[in-house]
């Protein structure tokens, strides 16, 4: 059959050839050799030259002979009967179904392989390696007995100033021969604003203690009216019990330890109730909850599982 486009209109396609592959290998060797070693480069250059020459020769020697006429009895593709019966409307061949399933399935698999690790990377670090921080606040003797101090400290030196936290600390003196200290977090149990002492802060008597956690600032304070939140008016007594306002529980406290006469803070914990005051206080301890979350009563059933902190 004659091509309607005419002899000179047919696309001039080179015949299939392996020489370009050798040429490409040679070029790669040459480039790698420039970095690795001169003789690899020389080998690559030689390969590229030889295969390039072979390739060029083949391209320029003209096209291969056109294939001969089809054998007797062969029917051109557009004549004669189809090898398969035509499909009825709506009918699909098994291969069609298989290819659709394979495309969707493989696509989903590739999507999952890419998406799941990325999603895990976005979410998991929020929950893993949430280590507790021990905070050295300096010698306990810096804390005068039965006096309140506002203390600010860096909770995680790796994070720097952004991890600076504030606690209200009162050295209660000895209880059964052991030091007793009240350490109340300043984070309101409503939505986490910083509560303020209800009384004067003696700014001029501020002192700075250098510890391995960075600077610890200690300022005497007289929270005669307890602690008051400036955001929404939550009010607490000196033991951190809620008196008024929107908070759902009392103020959180820090665990503490006395190590070689130094006051060391540990984890935060939530407080359901405090009875009594000072060293005689009986504290009903609860797992640390976020602000606004109940730690007792039926409402606490809304927060059964806490993320690691």
């Amino acid at each position, binding site marked *: 059959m004659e091509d309607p486009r005419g002899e000179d209109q047919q696309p001039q396609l080179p015949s299939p050839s392996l020489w370009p592959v050798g040429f490409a290998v040679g070029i790669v060797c040459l480039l790698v050799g420039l970095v690795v070693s001169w003789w690899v480069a020389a080998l690559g250059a030689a390969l590229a030259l030889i295969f390039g020459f072979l390739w060029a020769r083949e391209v320029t020697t003209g096209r291969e002979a056109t294939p001969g006429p089809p054998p007797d009895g062969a029917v051109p593709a557009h004549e004669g009967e189809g090898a398969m019966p035509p499909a009825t409307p709506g009918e699909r061949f098994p291969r069609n179904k298989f290819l659709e399933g394979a495309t969707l399935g493989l696509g989903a698999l590739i999507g999952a392989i890419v998406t799941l690790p990325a999603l895990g990377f976005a979410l998991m670090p929020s929950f893993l390696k949430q280590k507790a921080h021990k905070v050295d606040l300096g010698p306990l003797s810096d804390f005068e007995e039965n006096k309140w101090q506002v203390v600010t400290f860096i909770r995680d030196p790796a994070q720097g100033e952004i991890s600076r936290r504030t606690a209200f600390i009162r050295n209660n003196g000895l209880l059964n021969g052991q030091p007793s200290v009240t350490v109340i977090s300043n984070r309101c149990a409503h939505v986490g604003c910083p509560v303020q002492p209800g009384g004067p802060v003696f700014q001029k008597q501020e002192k700075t203690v250098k510890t391995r956690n960075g600077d610890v600032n200690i300022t005497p304070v007289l929270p005669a009216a307890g602690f008051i939140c400036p955001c929404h008016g939550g009010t607490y007594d000196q033991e951190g019990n809620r008196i008024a306002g929107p908070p759902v529980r009392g103020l959180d406290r820090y665990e503490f330890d006395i190590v070689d006469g130094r006051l060391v803070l540990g984890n935060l914990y939530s407080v359901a109730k405090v009875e009594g005051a000072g060293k005689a206080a009986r504290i009903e301890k609860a797992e640390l*909850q*976020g602000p*606004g979350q109940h730690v007792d009563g039926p409402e606490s059933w809304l*927060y059964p599982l806490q*993320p690691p902190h």
Partner: protein
Amino acid sequence: MATTQTKQSKSRQAVMYPLDWLEERSGLVGGLRYFLFRKVPGDSSWWHTLGSATLTAFLVQLVTGVILAMYYKPDPQNAHASVENITHNLWGGWLVRGMHRWGASVFIILMFMHMGRVFLFGAYKYPRELNWIVGVLILATGLFEGLTGYLLPFDQTAYWATVVAVNINGTAPFVGPWLASVLRGGAEIGPDTLARFYSIHMLLIPGALIGLIGFHLYLVVRLGVSSPPWSKDAAELGPDIEPEPQPPRSGLVQPAPRAAGVRRRPSE
């Protein structure tokens, strides 16, 4: 005279040739014409422009935000200093930051006004319910833009507002504490929180917003603009639709005819 005409036709050719080239290969010119010159009810009024105004406000946020990102540094040591630098030292920084800052409020206010218009005109009714739902999603993502953007200046207001916002999320039953941890990127607000909010604010949510707004506009173009409730034209059209007989549901492969059931004007 003749020379001016030739000149005119030549300059016309010079303009039209690239447009024709583009149109022949992409159909973009026709598509843009279809989008811009589609028919709207004759009695649509200034109220109908609130959606476009919201879109404009969003585009302003997009452009100014991209430029602010060139100078902003999302880590606790430098964030506030870089914002100060943008505001006080860099040429035009006060203006672009001001546009972004006040434009955020404009965007939110316009969204609510547009929503109010759609509600009061009853424009959310069949067949536009889906577009109302998409609009509500745009509102929610837009508000989340506001929340995440508020932390970025990293001053006391920003920090404590974010503490409060994250803790309010934390009080949601069951999932709240976990949600708060995801927002903070850990148990406490730290350097990761700022970077995370920045990424959400400038990449994640804008991407979602662009997709949602694209779908919103697609539905507007497909379903057309509704007449105001006092429209006499619409009243003369009579009851909304005679439901056209629907072919049996055949799924994605053979979709139902386009826009079946959408009101057609008698002139068409």
